[in-house]
């Protein structure tokens, strides 16, 4: 009996060990990446064709914006692909740490803080943010501490540290702003690389696959839903959701875009990069699309309140890192938890 137990555990752990040492990029993820690269090639070609059209048939400003968008996607895909080539998930964690750090920089720069917050901010940037990502890199064993470090201990610490600094002016407002920045830019985003460390899948076949596919699927659906909602808003939009916050997001675009995302998500599940079957993948895509839209709306509200167009306007005159990741930030925790509860044995 023991021998049998040992041998079965050998079978189950051996692929896992192999996966630890091999590239994160396995066959299924490769197929997914291939699909994305083909789409980008088509998009690049379309952009070049559109650019050669006479100005009367297409608006050159829109074509320029489209070409710039496609270039940004190439860059994102290239960075992710290179990171996945490194045979350790730590590289991806470091990548997301850097993104978090930069996003938090943009967030706090736009948020008025007082001199009394200086030391607290130092803690937030140099202790809490790295600590969160160290916990991510320690994997599922640290799941509990990872999921409460910032929203429990971090938040209490921020309130206490600002009180100790001795400046009571707009106290509640100041702690809330720093907490919100830390929560959105660091805590919520850190759930994306945490996907790499999910294990004990209920589907034994998926246990042999690389979780890089899951992360890539998530990022792809989040970006795609944002794009599809934008396109559908342009084509069908009539009722704007909240004109004061974002004039281009409409209910029609939201529903149609989410629907198309669900279809695309169901199709992408056929690559085998995720543990979902097509209808599960469709539901997951809807969740990502809804949360992504919620994130984009919430971050737009903050921008309107501060009177800026993009988080990057302060920096270079084009959109900042935070404008690119707002959808991912809101969708990552929900996607992580749903996957963990329903597709691994850890949840049940």
């Amino acid at each position, binding site marked *: 009996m023991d021998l049998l137990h040992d041998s079965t555990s050998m079978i189950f752990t051996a692929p896992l060990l192999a996966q630890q040492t091999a590239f994160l990029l396995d066959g299924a993820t490769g197929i997914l990446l291939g699909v994305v690269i083909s789409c980008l090639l088509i998009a690049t070609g379309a952009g070049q064709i559109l650019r050669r059209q006479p100005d009367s048939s297409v608006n050159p400003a829109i074509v320029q914006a489209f070409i710039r968008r496609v270039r940004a996607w190439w860059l994102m895909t290239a960075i992710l692909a290179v990171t996945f080539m490194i045979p350790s998930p730590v590289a991806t964690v470091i990548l997301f740490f850097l993104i978090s750090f930069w996003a938090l*920089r943009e967030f*706090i720069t736009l948020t008025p803080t007082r*001199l009394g917050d*200086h030391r607290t*901010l*130092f803690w937030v*940037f140099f202790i809490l943010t790295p600590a969160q990502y160290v916990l991510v890199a320690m994997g599922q064993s640290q799941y509990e501490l990872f999921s409460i470090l910032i929203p429990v201990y971090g938040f209490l610490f921020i309130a206490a540290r600002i009180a100790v600094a001795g400046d009571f002016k707009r106290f509640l407002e100041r702690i809330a702003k720093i907490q919100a920045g830390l929560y959105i830019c660091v805590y919520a985003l850190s759930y994306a690389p945490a996907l790499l460390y999910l294990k004990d899948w209920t589907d034994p076949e998926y246990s042999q696959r690389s979780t890089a596919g899951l992360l890539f699927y998530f990022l792809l659906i989040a970006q795609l839903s944002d794009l599809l909602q934008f396109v559908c808003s342009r084509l069908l939009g009539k009722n704007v959701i909240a004109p004061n916050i974002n004039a281009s997001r409409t209910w029609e675009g939201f529903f149609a875009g989410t629907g198309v995302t669900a279809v695309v998500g169901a199709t992408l599940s056929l690559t085998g990069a995720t543990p979902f079957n097509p209808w599960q993948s469709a539901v997951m895509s809807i969740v990502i699309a809804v949360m992504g839209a919620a994130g984009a709306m919430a971050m737009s509200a903050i921008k309107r309140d501060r009177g800026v167009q993009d988080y990057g306007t*302060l*920096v270079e005159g084009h959109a900042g890192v935070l404008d690119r990741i707002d959808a991912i930030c809101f969708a990552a925790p929900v996607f992580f938890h749903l996957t963990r509860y329903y597709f691994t044995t850890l949840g049940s």
Partner: protein
Amino acid sequence: MKFNLTGPFLAGLAKVVAGNSVRWVDCHPDTCQRVYFANHTSHIDAVIIWASLPKECRELTKPVAAKDYWDKGWFRRYLARSLNAMLIDRENIKVHRSPVESMLKEMGDKYSVIIFPEGSRNDGTTLREFKSGLFYLAKKRPDLELVPVYVDNMTRILPKGEYLPVPLLSRVIFGPPIWLENGEPKVDFLARARESVSRLRDV
């Protein structure tokens, strides 16, 4: 110019810490002799402005610093030398050795300088009144271009009395040069210069 690695390194470090973006408003980088005058909110202001200049201008530009502070100890002296700083004696002042005189002498007909006419660091909300050095500089050398510079957000990155920086994003804005008008009184000129700096905050 002798081989210097610390200067570029410090400039790079300051750029990373302060994440600064540079804007030239109605003004362009040039190697002609200039006086960059800026608001003063933090210890690393001078380094940030110096690092924001293109390389060929940087080699010809000296941040002006107080000799009594920067000439103490080998480390401060070393830093001052790496940053190409011009140390001005503000204690031992005599008739022909006023700070403006010695500054002009060191500038010769080649170097530009970075100065902070407020004298000491402000609290980050309003600019202090400008000291008169800028006026005498302009009066003695009317050919110098006086370029206003506004450094934004530095007070939050490294406020007065703190030693650890918080890596927020800052901005350095260079504005259109001003000159001393014929017969312009000192008070009027200094007010105008101060206005030319604070105006850049909103562009």
